[in-house]
């Protein structure tokens, strides 16, 4: 990359870099939320020094009004990034996000665009207990006109956040809580990853493993283990969950004939459900074995870090699912098939 400065960013530094660059590039971009000046997650730290308190706006603890203010500002000429700290706090702002932002453009017949990003921390991994660890993405995926982004690494975090800020639609941008300190090479300046486009992280011919966010790392670890068994897994990082890159997944399954959906969220109506259903609907004739889902155990996120690890998809879970699916062919009596879980 001739002339481009590349540094080994943490995920959090990538977020800060994306915000800084976009705020420099476009003075209509503002940032609003609780303690964004001091920067509780450090992703917004220092921005007020450069851009001043009119563009980096601290608020009272009032998620509903703050989210709504972001929407009102986005409908009247600004691009707003609303920092809502932790995923579960979005429940307090849900009327504004779902009922207002989620409908506004459509229900007003296209009279407005709505360039607002709701940014928060998603999922578990820090032993933070049930109110600070919940995976939120399936809820937003169900909403017709909200984009949902879940980056899995510092490079993508930067490129996707820049794209999200430039997007004229409401975007829920979900940083994976436990990836904050991970590092990767990230170029300074223009790096924009289009929303809705997934990435093949690893080529493989035997099984397609589809994932996003933190779980991508588990899938990549699993792929290494599987390779030593002679099973070549193709690992897809969707990056954007709504709209999502169906074609990439379907094409991959056409090649591999086997499909595993790995998602760090609750199993029922989770992201894995959507991916698995889509493959079963649109790539059925390619499938040599049942689709498999690996999701969280269907319980609130427990505090104890060991329990929390057990709840979330592990590399071992993915390996086991892959082995069982690769061992199963159509017509074979389904020995490798899991029992219906009985809750």
């Amino acid at each position, binding site marked *: 990359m001739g002339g481009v400065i590349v540094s080994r960013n943490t995920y959090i530094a990538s977020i800060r870099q994306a915000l800084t660059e976009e705020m420099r590039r476009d003075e*209509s971009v*503002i940032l*609003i939320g609780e303690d964004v000046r001091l920067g509780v997650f450090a992703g917004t730290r220092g921005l007020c020094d450069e851009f001043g308190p*009119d*563009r980096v*706006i601290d*608020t*009272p603890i*009032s998620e*509903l*009004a*703050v*989210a*709504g*203010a*972001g*929407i*009102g*500002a*986005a*409908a*009247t*000429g*600004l691009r*707003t990034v609303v920092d809502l700290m932790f995923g579960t706090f979005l429940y307090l702002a849900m*009327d*504004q996000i779902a*009922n*207002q932002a989620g409908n*506004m*453009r*459509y*229900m*007003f*017949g*296209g*009279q*407005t*665009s*709505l360039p607002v990003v709701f940014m928060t921390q998603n999922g578990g991994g820090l032993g933070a207990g049930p109110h600070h660890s919940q995976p939120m993405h399936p809820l937003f995926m169900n909403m*017709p*006109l909200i*984009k949902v982004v879940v980056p899995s690494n510092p490079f993508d975090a930067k490129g996707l956040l820049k794209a999200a800020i430039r*997007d*004229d*639609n409401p975007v829920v941008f979900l940083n994976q809580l436990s990836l904050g300190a991970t590092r990767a090479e990230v170029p300074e300046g223009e790096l924009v990853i289009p929303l809705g486009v997934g990435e093949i992280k690893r080529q493989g011919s035997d099984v397609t493993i589809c994932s996003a966010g933190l779980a991508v790392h588990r899938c990549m670890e699993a792929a290494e283990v599987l390779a030593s068994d002679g099973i070549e897994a193709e690992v897809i990082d969707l990056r954007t969950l709504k*709209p999502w890159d169906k074609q990439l997944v379907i094409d991959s399954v056409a090649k591999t004939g086997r499909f595993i959906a790995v998602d760090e969220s609750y199993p029922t109506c989770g992201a894995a459900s959507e991916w698995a259903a889509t493959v079963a609907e649109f790539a059925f004739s390619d499938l040599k074995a049942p689709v498999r889902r690996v999701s969280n155990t269907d319980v609130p996120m427990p505090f104890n870090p060991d329990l929390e690890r057990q709840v979330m998809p592990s590399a071992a879970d993915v390996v086991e699912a892959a082995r069982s699916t690769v061992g199963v062919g159509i017509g074979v009596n389904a020995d490798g098939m899991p029992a219906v879980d009985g809750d």
Partner: protein
Amino acid sequence: MSIKPITQQTQQVQSDHVDSDQVVSDPIDKKSVGAVTALDIYRRVVLIRRFEERVGMLFRQGQLPGFVHLYIGQEAIAAGVCTALRDDDYIVSTHRGHGHVIAKGGDPDRMMAELFGKVTGYCKGKGGSMHIADFSKGVLGACGIVAGGLPIAVGAALSAKTRSTDQVAVTFFGDGAANEGSFHESLNLASTLNLGVLFVCENNQYGEFTAATDAMNIENVAERAASYGIAGVIVDGSDPLEMHLLAQQAVARARQGGGPTLIEAKTHRRDHAEGEDAFLAGQKYRSDDELAAAESSDPLNRIHKDLLSFNFASAAELETIDAAAVNKVDAAVQFARNSDDPTEAVLLEDRWVA
């Protein structure tokens, strides 16, 4: 701790500094509105009234789908406030929103078409009565969620401040809405960010069929302004000219960076929703006295009388304006009837912005 009782007359807002202690109760000189503006207010009041009467009739005839909440009885508020606004000021409306849109200069044709669900409507038939918007006139939309509009108005005012314009944002809402968390957060946020928002509470004394007095243990919503360190004022929301003068002061202050005002307009609605008689099936929730009081404080009668007594217009002139309003409404119904239903292509429009 004590609250000084607020008399139910118009309270003056001072534009110098935000302080909930600055409410003076000078009698207002309604004539100071002037003939031109007063007639403008009348024109809007009467257009809202004729529009709403027709909508009620059409609904009862089964010609309109969905739910319809009419603005009849509250016209003074929208007309009084919106005549104090510029075209580029913002308003955010409610489920009872037709009057706000008309008062801000919305097009009755496109409104009526929307109520019929036609493609020529403001929202191409996809929004309906509770979701009419006209961004070209600063109408950021009606809202089916009680108190859903308040945060959006705060955002519009924030946007104006950040863009260094002096646009003002007004959010209308009901007495019932004042008990939603959204009310609290929005007023507090507007106060701490010192934004130019008018929070206009249309206290028609009921939220659906629950009396405001059962839903809060204070007499006046305006008292709540003290919780946010902003000015709170009470005005006779059945009096178009008083309403206008009060709004003017609050708008002036907001424009000059003086921050938000909570305006409580005491008023009466006719019904909660059209068709409620059938639904209530004889259940009563208001006394005959209340109904009579509502009747006698009719805002259209009030401004009609004022205009005559101030010699701003003759009865015949007012009659002409009224007839013009009826014509506009006739034309709007024609326009709506002659318009097409939205096609499936329209259904799929207005999703993502590319």
